[in-house]
């Protein structure tokens, strides 16, 4: 690892600002500080939702346990899903992009810094609204998808559902603001010479994510608004006089693209990390960009694969089945490109690279189970079983969360000026890999055996052993997160000084100080390829620039 151990002057005033009066944080419009606030807030959400998961696992460790009652269990399972999907993964990725994307494109800040601040401050409002439910007689208890009639006033008179709809409306508004801001920043504020086909792949990933959220954010808000109108005015959108299935169409028109909102930025990070630590150029840059947009377009035409059992027309189901399976094609292209990039590279197994490889290994399992589930006859059997729980965690935890950890280990030195500890990082990675697979791999068989998801307890004695094993492993997984938290707290103060460019990177964020000055660059850099820093280093070493984009 090319760690530069020379002491690095971190700008005093800026460093002070990180620990400075709360007013700095409350009033900042600096995309870097806002990015850190996004990450901090959503990581707290991750810890809370993780604790909920552990409580659920204790409850399920043996048949017929009553650690929590069924109503509490339902609230925990709903809060776990909502928090992980809306408040942790999506928002943590927004925070990372907030910090990195403007620097990667050579901008001094986002296009609309005040909108950026407002978008962030809506996040605590949104989270606060959801969690208010717990103090107002019980939070949402209908699962993170909140189908009617489970959420109708008649069956669910409490305030929890109302807090949930309001929370998600605010969340969608915040996400739309961020999307408008990202797209404008990337389109309008690029450094001279940075053509679209010279954008780093992480930036392309952010374009696609923002585009998706821009398009599907409003339908989510719409579904929530109509739910709430039905509840408040006794109207007929989703009642039996209207059509309950309409809700599912609206929700999943958002919901499926949302899973890509959570994975595409991760794809982008992997596309940055693998070339750097393989010391090779990314294989097939253009096909990577094309594949991203293939996924974007397909992902908006597959939502009904979550609704195969509601009684859709068989021809409609067939069409959705074909389109769903087709997503495996662009995803496969990306996979093979990553493998080809690493192939015969001078691979350095740093912690970010370990997480990137861990991602490749686990995400592919989730992708394959996804293709299984896309088949109508298979899904008719497996829907609402633990098989789906296994699938979604392989793509969301093994996929998105592994990329988030890869990205944190990769960019932490840029954010703080110090590297995360590699030894702890190694332990963090291996405990997480074993804990994760231990927890979720065996769930596939539980699902095949017919164990339903979202149940507070079960009676079958022959499921006891497997469930007990899963619970033990889930604590190993939690332990790995604890190691990570320790690593951050330790390295923030005592980590190795990183310097500007600890990994010998390719992209512009490594061309400025760690952390960057408030204005990011003293001089706006000029760009000749999608690896501008590499060009500069090669030019300084006297060799001709290698990249020719």
């Amino acid at each position: 690892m090319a760690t530069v151990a020379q002491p690095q002057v971190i700008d005093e005033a800026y460093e002070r600002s990180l620990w400075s009066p709360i007013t700095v944080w409350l009033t900042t419009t600096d995309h870097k500080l806002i990015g850190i606030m996004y990450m901090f807030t959503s990581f707290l959400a991750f810890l809370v939702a993780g604790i909920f998961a552990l409580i659920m696992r204790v409850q399920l460790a043996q048949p017929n346990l009553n650690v929590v009652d069924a109503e509490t269990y339902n609230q925990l399972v709903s809060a776990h899903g909502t928090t992980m999907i809306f408040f942790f993964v999506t928002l943590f990725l927004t925070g990372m992009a907030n910090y990195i994307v403007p620097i990667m494109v050579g901008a001094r800040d986002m296009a609309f810094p005040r909108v950026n601040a407002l978008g962030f401050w809506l996040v605590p409002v949104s989270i606060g609204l959801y969690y208010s439910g717990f103090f107002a007689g019980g939070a949402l208890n209908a699962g993170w998808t909140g189908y009617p009639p489970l959420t109708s006033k008649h069956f669910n008179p409490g305030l929890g559902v109302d807090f949930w709809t309001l929370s998600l409306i605010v969340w969608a508004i915040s996400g739309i603001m961020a999307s408008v801001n990202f797209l404008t920043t990337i389109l309008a504020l690029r450094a001279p010479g940075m053509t679209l086909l010279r954008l780093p792949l992480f930036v392309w990933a952010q374009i696609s994510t923002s585009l998706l959220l821009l398009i599907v954010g409003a339908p989510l808000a719409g579904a929530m608004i109509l739910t709430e109108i039905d509840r408040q005015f006794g109207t007929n959108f989703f009642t039996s006089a209207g059509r309950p299935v309409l809700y599912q169409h609206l929700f999943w028109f958002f919901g499926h693209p949302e899973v890509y909102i959570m994975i595409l930025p991760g794809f982008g990070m992997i596309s940055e990390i693998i070339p750097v630590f393989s010391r090779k150029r990314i294989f097939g840059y253009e096909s990577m960009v094309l594949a991203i947009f293939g996924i974007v377009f397909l992902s908006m035409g597959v939502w009904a694969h979550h609704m195969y059992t509601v009684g859709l027309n068989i021809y409609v189901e067939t069409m959705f089945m074909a389109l769903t399976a087709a997503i495996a094609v662009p995803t496969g292209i990306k996979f093979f490109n990553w493998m080809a990039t690493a192939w015969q590279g001078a691979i350095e197994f740093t912690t970010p690279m370990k997480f990137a490889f861990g991602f490749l290994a686990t995400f592919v399992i989730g992708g394959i189970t996804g293709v299984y589930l896309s088949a109508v006859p298979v899904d008719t059997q497996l829907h609402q079983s633990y098989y789906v729980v296994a699938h979604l965690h392989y793509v969301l935890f093994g996929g998105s969360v592994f990329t988030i950890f890869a990205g944190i280990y990769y960019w932490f030195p840029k954010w703080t000026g110090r590297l995360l500890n590699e030894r702890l990082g190694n332990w963090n990675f291996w405990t997480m890999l074993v804990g994760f697979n231990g927890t979720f791999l065996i769930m596939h068989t539980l699902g095949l055996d017919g164990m339903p998801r979202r149940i507070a307890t079960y009676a079958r004695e022959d499921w006891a052993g497997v469930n007990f094993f899963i619970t033990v492993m889930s604590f190993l997984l939690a332990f790995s997160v604890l190691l990570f938290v320790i690593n951050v707290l330790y390295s923030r103060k005592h980590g190795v000084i990183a310097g500007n460019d600890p990994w010998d990177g390719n992209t512009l964020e490594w061309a400025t100080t760690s952390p960057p000055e408030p204005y990011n660059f003293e001089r706006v850099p000029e760009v000749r390829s999608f690896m501008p820093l590499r060009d500069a280093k090669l030019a300084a070493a006297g060799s001709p620039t290698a990249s020719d984009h």
Partner: protein
Amino acid sequence: MAVAVTEVPDRVPVYPRLSPGMMGMYIFLASEVMFFGTLFASYFYLYGSHQPWPPPGSHPVNWWPIPFFNSIILFSSGATCHVAHLGIQAGNRRRFFYWWVLTIVLGIGFEIGQAYEFVEKLAPQWISFLPWVNPSDAMAFSANPFATAFFTMTGFHGLHVLGGLVILCILLWRFSKGQFSQRHHVGIAAGAIYWHFVDAVWAFLFVVLYLLVTFPNGYQGG
């Protein structure tokens, strides 16, 4: 530190001449299109799954007279807004001011018309002193899926017009503070685009919720 400067780049891209402000507004409108798209999609879904439509027992809305005149008012406000925008582009502050104020007045006129429509259907007893109001023509919000969708869609459009009016007024206030000039008036251009969008949504609402409901079998003449 200075960074990544190698030599003059070979291919310097031509950047879009659109300012970030305008670009942001156009991108934002995409999400607004999706919001109304969601409402229209829900409407047609309910339409397709309920025969006859509108369901019996509701008093179908009529395109005449208020919705018709309201359309004329709102579309004219789009035109006046455009003239005002041309005014500031030509550096004619007076022209901008008068036409912009006229736009706001027309917008308020539209909102009054809509408010009347709502009261006439939801609470006719409030205005029963008017000789032509027939309290039995009421249509409750929860009467059936048509009524639900009708009030939701026109209601959200009305809220967007209200939001547009707030924006127009803020821009007028900023104009009076001298914050816009012939060259620098991104705010006005973006506000105008938003106003045109709100107009365009009404065109769809008028056709789908009024004309198609008044003439379910097409216009029969007479």
